[in-house]
């Protein structure tokens, strides 16, 4: 019985694994260690955003401020660093900006009943606008070596970016599965009545979830800029939809109440791996779009089939 249950869980991982092996056998250089480490490094940006985004989607919200925060938060830190402020306080300022804007989103949703779509979109646009205007639309770069090392350095051969992603994965997983906070977040998305019975404030949870998402976006943005040694005012645009798509590929339900952080991170790796594979194959850019679109639909379709079969099988047991 236990083995069957484990086998069903494993089936969910089988899909990406099969995809991975297929790509590895067909595409030269895909399985090079340096390339795989690169893929994780490139995906870490979407991955960290996906950790925060998972909670937001679980409580039936959405966070569209990623694009703006991914540019604005590092812009703050960057300008401070270039002005002579130490790396650590500069990073702290950038993180504070992200948390602050996230909390603002939470405030709008919790107390003013503004749809998450609108408030996060607006906050994102404001952040984008600020990122553009603080330096006249120009990018900034040439940061202190310590900062650049975070994005490009390695520890025991593993890029720091990958390690940071793993930390966030662990943090998110821990909060969700092992803390009361995590339970309450899941409840807010699925069984709000439970919260009311226990006297837990939904508003406080909303504050946390959006604030945390803003925090994740800030970290991602800082990491991205550390990797490029640059803050470009529009650097976040490409990541907005990918982060949400990563969550959904990972099985997070847009209707709320359900989602697994490790799977969302897996979704991010799938997206990153897919783009890498297409680049390595040298597929024409026009055709890449067709590929990515089709594969995303295919993966979610197959994932849904596996998930529904699992649910059917476990119904009546446990």
């Amino acid at each position, binding site marked *: 019985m236990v083995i069957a249950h484990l086998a069903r869980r494993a089936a969910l991982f089988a899909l990406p694994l099969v995809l991975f092996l297929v790509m590895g056998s067909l595409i030269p250089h895909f399985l090079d260690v340096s390339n795989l480490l690169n893929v994780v490094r490139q995906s870490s940006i979407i991955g960290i955003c996906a950790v925060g985004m998972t909670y937001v989607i679980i409580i039936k919200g959405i966070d569209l401020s990623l694009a703006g925060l991914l540019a604005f938060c590092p812009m703050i830190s960057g300008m401070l660093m270039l002005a002579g402020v130490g790396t650590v306080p500069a990073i702290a300022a950038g993180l504070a900006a992200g948390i602050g804007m996230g909390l603002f989103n939470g405030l709008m949703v919790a*107390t003013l009943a503004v749809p998450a779509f609108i408030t996060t979109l607006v906050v994102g646009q404001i952040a984008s606008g600020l990122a553009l205007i603080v330096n*006249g639309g120009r990018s900034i770069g040439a940061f202190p070596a310590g900062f650049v090392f975070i994005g490009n350095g390695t520890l025991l051969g593993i890029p720091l970016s990958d390690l940071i992603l793993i930390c966030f994965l662990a943090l998110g997983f821990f909060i969700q599965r092992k803390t009361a906070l995590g339970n309450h977040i899941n409840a807010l998305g699925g069984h709000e009545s439970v919260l009311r019975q226990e006297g837990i404030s939904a508003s406080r949870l909303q504050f946390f979830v959006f604030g945390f998402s803003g925090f994740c976006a800030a970290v991602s943005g800082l990491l991205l800029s550390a990797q490029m040694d640059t803050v470009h005012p529009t650097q976040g645009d490409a990541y907005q939809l990918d982060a949400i798509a990563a969550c959904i590929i990972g099985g997070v339900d847009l209707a709320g109440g359900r989602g697994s952080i490790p799977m969302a991170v897996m979704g991010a790796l799938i997206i990153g791996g897919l783009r890498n594979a297409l680049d390595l194959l040298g597929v024409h850019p026009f055709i890449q779009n067709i590929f990515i679109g089709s594969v995303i639909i295919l993966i979610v379709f197959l994932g849904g089939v596996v998930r529904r079969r699992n649910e059917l099988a476990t119904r009546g047991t446990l």
Partner: protein
Amino acid sequence: MAKGAKRPFGAVPGRMAAWIGRHVSFFIFAVLAVLATLCVRNFAARDNLVIILKQSAIPAVACIGMTMVLMTGGIDLSLGYIVGLASIIAGILAKTLLLPVPEVVLAVLLVGALIGLANGLITQYLRVPAFIATLGSGYVIYGLAQIVSQGSIVNRLPKGFLAIGRTDVLGLPSAVFIAAGVALGFHILISRAIFGRQLRAFGFSPKAAALSGVPTARINVLVYAISGTLAALAGLLFTIRVNAAQPNMGGGVFTFEVVTAAIVGGTSLFGGIGSVAGSILGVLSIKIIENCINLLGVSYHLYLAVQGAIILVAIIVGNLTHHRA
């Protein structure tokens, strides 16, 4: 208002609140229009108002389709990309292949309908969430548009083709009247016909709707097909308006603009709530804001930020008088 019901602070009591509550989108639109007239020079000038109508017509057409999709609890992220594909197909058929105008229109609308149909089938029968189904199909469509166009645009289109949308009627281009006709047609369909009730029921609870005999599968597929067709129509009209067919017309930015307009117009992302009238007012509201920002000469970097802030304030004010879902 029931005692103990959750209410945002500062709600306006009484009958006025109830009226505003039922017509939040109109309230927002009216306040914006009044503020703009009072505070922005040249806003209320006849030719400026004509411009706002011209700029609103095409997003309105797309927004009607999106509203219906949102009412079922779904979303159509391929909308902006269908606009682009429709645009370049229209351009190639009309100018490069010199097909007669009615055939061009039919072909473009058919393409939109087929794509929408595919979206609907994937969402309904393959059980892929609409977000992913339409995001994926959007990428595919964009790739197709690029391949078909080889990245280039087609401009200076045949006059007969342009006449569809550029014929002057009572001082407005015919495109505005086409949009008005589409709006009226779907307004009647949604607010008077059974289809509208079924749509709302489906949006609130697909299971309950199915149990009460609503043909949920058919409706789910149908709304995407309609959205696709209207997106194609919007692409056609856009192409005529700027006299250029581009594969990247519309795009993701346009999709978001349309969804935002629908939400400002009172549509709920969770389904069940929405109206054609509300969405049209939402589009007009956003275009009024954009117009004022341009008239006031706000810095181009802050353009979106200012627009966003005003939308946020508008929604908050709307909420203060009525609790939104």
